[in-house]
């Protein structure tokens, strides 16, 4: 039972990050290599806010908002001019953004490892089926589940979500119907960045906050997105659960084989269902 809960907590953290990545790709057609760097920036901002205010909750609320503003600025200044350019321009631009963000973080916070303490109400552990499980992990599971519900509801059941889906399916038609597509795109990128910020803030009490944290987790995010299907929130949930459980059960039975198991799942998915578990195969002819 404890393995399941730990697997769920790993999955929820992966989902929070992957959701933003898949949303940006699905709706904007951009593979955002800087997503890990935005997650890192979110973690550092959350650290600064929690250190300055003494409150983890303030950090959890404000850091994503700051990331949303950052994302909006990035979309307007850097990505909007190159939407019509080949994909290589977008890849290079987002790769360059990684270097800029990492250098910014290095100048602001230095090379020292940082840490966020969990709030007192979430410190310590509870005994669950003869295993001590940290309260913070249980919070991550519940918070992640709540975010899944919010995203589904927002995208599938609200008029705002309808506008987002319409703009991504047919931008020209949406524009003709009065939707300001450029503003929608800015909003989507801002939302994706905010989700990365939430991921950073949530990860802070569990993982070391350091310069390389973005590059180490982005690989897992891409694996989740590829397994689930690019641009698919349901797929991101399924992919995150699959990878989270693989890692948890890998730790339980064969820790040194975790990476091999994870990449085996990825390769098997690509071979059997290259469009991803919930992706739609596009006809080329």
């Amino acid at each position, binding site marked *: 039972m404890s393995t399941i809960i730990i697997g769920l907590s*790993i999955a929820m953290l992966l989902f929070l990050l992957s959701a933003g990545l898949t949303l940006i790709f699905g709706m904007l057609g951009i593979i955002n290599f800087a997503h890990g760097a935005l997650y890192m920036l979110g973690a550092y901002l959350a650290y600064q806010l929690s250190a300055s205010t003494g409150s983890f909750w303030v950090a959890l609320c404000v850091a994503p908002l700051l990331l949303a503003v950052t994302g909006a600025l990035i979309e307007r200044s850097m990505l909007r001019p190159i939407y019509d350019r080949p994909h290589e321009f977008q890849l290079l631009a987002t790769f360059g953004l990684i270097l800029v963000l990492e250098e910014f973080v290095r100048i602001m916070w230095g090379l020292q*490892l940082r840490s966020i303490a969990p709030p007192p109400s979430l410190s310590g552990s509870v005994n669950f089926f003869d295993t001590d499980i*940290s309260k913070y992990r249980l919070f991550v599971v519940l918070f992640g589940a709540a975010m899944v519900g919010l995203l589904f509801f927002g995208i599938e059941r609200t008029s705002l979500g309808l506008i987002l889906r319409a703009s991504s399916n047919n931008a020209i038609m949406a524009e003709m119907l009065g939707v300001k597509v450029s503003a929608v795109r800015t909003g989507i990128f801002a939302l994706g960045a905010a989700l990365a910020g939430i991921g950073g803030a949530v990860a802070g009490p569990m993982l070391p906050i350091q310069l390389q944290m973005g590059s180490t987790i982005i690989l897992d995010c891409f694996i989740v997105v590829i397994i689930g299907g690019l641009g698919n929130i349901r797929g991101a949930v399924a992919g995150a659960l699959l990878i989270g459980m693989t890692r948890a059960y890998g730790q339980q039975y064969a820790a040194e084989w975790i990476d091999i198991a994870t990449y085996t799942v990825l390769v098997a998915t690509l071979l059997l269902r290259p469009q991803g578990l919930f992706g739609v195969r596009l006809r080329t002819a």
Partner: protein
Amino acid sequence: MRTRSISVAFLTLAIGVALMSAAPAQTADKFRIAGIIPLSGAWGIIGENMRRGATIAIEERGGQVLGKPVEVIWEDTETSTQVAVQKATRALSQGVHTVFGEVSSGSTLAIMKLTDQRKVPQIVTLSADDRITGADNSRYTFRTSNTVSMENAMIGEFAKRRAVKKVYGIIADYQVGRDMWAALRADLASKGIDVAGEEFAPIGSKDYSIMLDKAVKSGADGLALIVVGGDVVTSLKQGGEINLPQKMTVVGTMLMDETLGQAVGPAGALGVNSTLRYHFTEDTPRNKKFVAAYQAKYKEPPSQYAGEAYDGLSWWLDTVESTQSWDKEKWVDAFRNSVRQDSVEGVKRMRACDNQAEQIGLFGTAEAGGGEGLAVVMKVAETFPAQTLFKPCT
């Protein structure tokens, strides 16, 4: 005829090179040191600390050696062995007099081959792999800090003194980690301490909770945590969530210090036991002077990495000064037989048989910080005499 001319030309060139090699060492306009260390990447913070310690060592002698100014060329290896080799090659081609570095044992072993070829002294103040002064040792490479064998000996002895009966191992899955664990297992067995289990965790693992849970449930009363870089913080933070240091005697090599304590937080750090390369509380005149200079410049006490860097480089530069010569071979010969009576940790003796400094070993336990803005401080719990940590030269 043409072939004969070419042969004569080559012979002339060879004679010229031989004559140049035999010529006495020329006085240079500067004493050049290549600082080949990571200043970015996963170990950038370690390299930055080493740079600070080395800077104090140079500043306290007025920035001069043999009457000439010291010039340090700092090269960022970006925590990559490939980059370290490239940077070392470039630095050696610029005619440096000494190489200082690196951090990772793999990088140090790679650079040693270059410094050995070029006959340039290399001072190692951190990398612990036994091969550096063991199987792969070089006349030109000196280590003034701990070896893996020393670290293992201290861990085993500490576990024995704390009456630990069974140890569970969580080890970073890389060669040095596996080698270290294999040696530690043997040492624990020789002391009558059983091994209850082992886990090899991929470097960069983001979750240690299940492995830690297995360790707690194994019945072991001790946990040997041999992990590196950010994984130290990850594992201890997650261990803190389940009060691990209160359930098991947690031991490791360079597992905890004041810097890591800040990153881990008190819940995961307090009670953790670790080898200490150096500690700023050591009561020696040189250490007090060094700590005062470091705090005045950097507004915080020196870390292990800074202390070891200062100690090793200042010892080397003092030895170079004592030769009153620009002949590198004389420096090497002098250093191989030198004794540092007043190092920051007391007496250090360079062993001519392997270029390894014989020295005491420190073992500390993390306690709640009492000042200097530190949440966690290390208290030196055990000091192991040099003779218990080193086998005599054969």
